[in-house]
């Protein structure tokens, strides 16, 4: 049950993009068309869903007193980012092989998934919230799914808004910033809802 609650919370309530404003660069730059946004979104789900459990293992088994009781937590940043970089490198090779068109349209923003703060941020949230293995998997998949939904949403809005009479200076990127700001304000009001407390049996005091 915990798995589903954490998934829903990560995807819809504490959305990494719209509530925490993480992973903004690729979100804004690649959201020109739904098709490329879809590809990048899937890549992010994959990378988040796979790096989170790996980083959980590294953090609990190696860093936190795993090796002869030594406290190696100062290596956390470097090891987490190395895992993420190698996963992204893998994704890059796969996409280059399977879909050269998507590879070309993503351009520089494919390698930049490595420094997508949503991914490192997710791993660091996992540490501070002390998730278990299955919880961190749920958080990774849910967070990735939320990121995916957010980039699809903004890409769809931007495709529609292209036909509107927007002032020339705001066309494209400017509107994307404004829309994300508005969506973020809407998500601010969802903060603090806990799906686990909504079961109806015993409400919070």
């Amino acid at each position, binding site marked *: 049950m915990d798995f589903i609650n954490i998934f829903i919370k990560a995807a819809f309530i504490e959305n990494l993009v719209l509530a925490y*404003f*993480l*992973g*903004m*660069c*690729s979100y*804004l*730059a690649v959201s*020109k068309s739904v098709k490329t946004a879809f590809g990048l979104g899937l890549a992010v789900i994959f990378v988040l869903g796979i790096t989170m459990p790996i980083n959980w293992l590294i953090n609990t088994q190696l860093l936190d007193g795993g090796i002869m009781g030594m406290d190696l937590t100062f290596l956390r*940043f*470097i090891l987490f*980012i*190395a895992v993420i*970089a*190698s996963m*992204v*490198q893998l994704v890059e*090779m796969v996409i280059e092989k399977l879909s050269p068109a998507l590879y070309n349209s993503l351009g*520089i923003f494919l*390698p*930049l998934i*490595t*420094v*997508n*703060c949503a991914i*490192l941020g997710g791993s660091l949230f996992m540490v501070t919230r002390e998730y278990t293995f299955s919880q961190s998997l749920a958080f990774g998949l849910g967070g990735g799914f939320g990121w995916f939904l957010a980039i699809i949403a903004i890409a769809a809005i931007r495709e529609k808004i*292209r036909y509107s009479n927007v*002032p*020339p*200076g*705001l*066309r*494209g*990127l*400017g*509107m994307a*910033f*404004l829309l*994300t*700001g*508005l969506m*973020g*304000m809407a998500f*601010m009001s969802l903060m603090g809802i806990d799906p686990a407390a909504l079961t109806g049996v015993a409400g919070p005091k």
Partner: protein
Amino acid sequence: MADVATKPSSVAVKEPTFPFGKKEKRLITDPLGDNNPITIQVLGICSALAVTTQVVPSVIISIAVIFVCAFSNVLISLLRSHIPKQVRMIVQLVVIATLVTVVELVLKAASYEVYKQLSVFIGLIITNCIIMGRLEAFAMANNPWRSFLDGIGNGLGYGGILIIVAILRELFGKGSFAGIKLIGPSSEYALNTADSALLGWYAPNNLFVFPPAAMFIIAVLIWIQRSYRKNLVDIS
């Protein structure tokens, strides 16, 4: 034959780079305006939202980013022909992480108070996409001197936007500038405007402290920039 063909061109590329020519100048000036990392290239947005609630941290982070961006560009440019494509991201990140650690240690030694306040944001420079973005887009294909200038230029362009946004957010969100209270109803004023009819009426707006406000401010900056430079308008 191939040697003969490549030699003159490599000399031709190298020669005009050493002096501070027109092209080198543009490497610095372009990111300040027409090729700004934040408003045009869309790099480094996350930190621009996180750091800019106050002016002082923004200035320090800008300086750190200029340093890391310039020197990681130089290092990767020196290494660029030795890095296999399959592991280039890890190599780039190791270089970035090393430089960020250097910045962190220098700051720790120079001013421990500031370090305690900013250590989280300094760590996040590793995931600032402007640095890896410039490595991928520029340093992997250019010589060290030009990469250095490109790093400085992009760092400055980034820092400029960061400081503008921070000034606006701190002024309207907290009624202060660099920690000094300026406007709004309070007793700790530098200019003692508390009772003056001119500025004392302003109640600080908390929305400016939240990230959406930074999105709106950057959108307005983009609007202003593109109204003056029509060639930057998005036609797609």
